[in-house]
């Protein structure tokens, strides 16, 4: 599987962890009636470097407590890439929206809550790796030989 897939939201195209997108034929059934917290802006100029300290810290927070805060509600999480260097936002998908007020990625771009049937369940990354693999949107990708 490639390091990212395209995902469209409000006129913008983002790279997303491909494991998050439901595809029953590929063994990734959709979680129906889930809630997406999209921490991104429709402004086409809204972008931050992935290496920016606030983006690094949001990823650290995800590993330290955000996945735990979501618990069994978690469906999946992916940062949203614009290219190999730029962060356009993040999406957290959960079975309830109860924890979204605590989303660490909302510190960068405020979140919008939407109902969705488009996403599949993905386990959180084991950590502690924060760096991206060949520009893929964290936590997607790997350097393992194909």
């Amino acid at each position, binding site marked *: 599987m490639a390091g990212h897939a395209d995902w469209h939201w409000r006129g913008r195209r983002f790279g997303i962890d491909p494991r998050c997108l439901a595809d029953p034929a590929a063994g990734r059934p959709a979680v129906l009636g889930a809630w997406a917290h999209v921490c991104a802006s429709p402004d086409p100029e809204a972008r931050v470097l992935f290496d920016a300290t606030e983006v690094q810290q949001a990823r650290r927070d995800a590993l330290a407590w955000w996945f735990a805060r979501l618990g069994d509600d978690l469906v999946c999480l992916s940062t949203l890439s614009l290219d190999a260097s730029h962060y356009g936002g993040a999406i957290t998908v959960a079975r309830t929206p109860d924890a979204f007020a605590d989303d660490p990625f909302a510190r960068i771009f405020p979140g919008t809550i939407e109902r969705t049937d488009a996403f599949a369940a993905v386990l959180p990354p*084991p950590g502690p790796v924060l760096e991206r693999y060949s520009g893929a949107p964290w936590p997607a990708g790997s350097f393992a030989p194909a």
Partner: protein
Amino acid sequence: MPPSSLTPGKRFPDLDLPDHEGRPRRLADLPGGDPLVLCFSRGWWCPKEQRFLRALVELQSEFEVAYARIVVVSVDEPGVQAAFRAGLGARFLFLSDAERRWLGPLELEETTDTTHAPYQPYVFSLRPDLSIHAAYAGYWSFGRPTLEELRTDMRAISRDIRPDWEL
């Protein structure tokens, strides 16, 4: 000495255990192509484990940018591990063998502790395919790897598995 099945060059068994959130995991899924430090820990109550895991937490800020992973296995329940992990400030995974399913098969029982029946504190440096690069017996605290030894292990494995090591 580690059990004969857990010596350098041998493949570590693919443990199937819940993580600190109770989610089922398989060890083989965790490296994701990166080298991995696998630490067997007695449990949260042991002062030696607290000290060693605080040291691993120091190391995580290097691992987070160096494409290497850390996994801790103990007999603590997942909820206890989650609280211990949060208290340490760890951002790596804990696996819970509260049922002690793998203690016998791995031959890592610490028989001198009849109260907790924990793991012996062994640390393994693993390649992404779970083959063992180095093993450290930590029953005596000075038997555990220093952070420098773990860095050296990760360097050796990375040099071997990264085809562009010398770009």
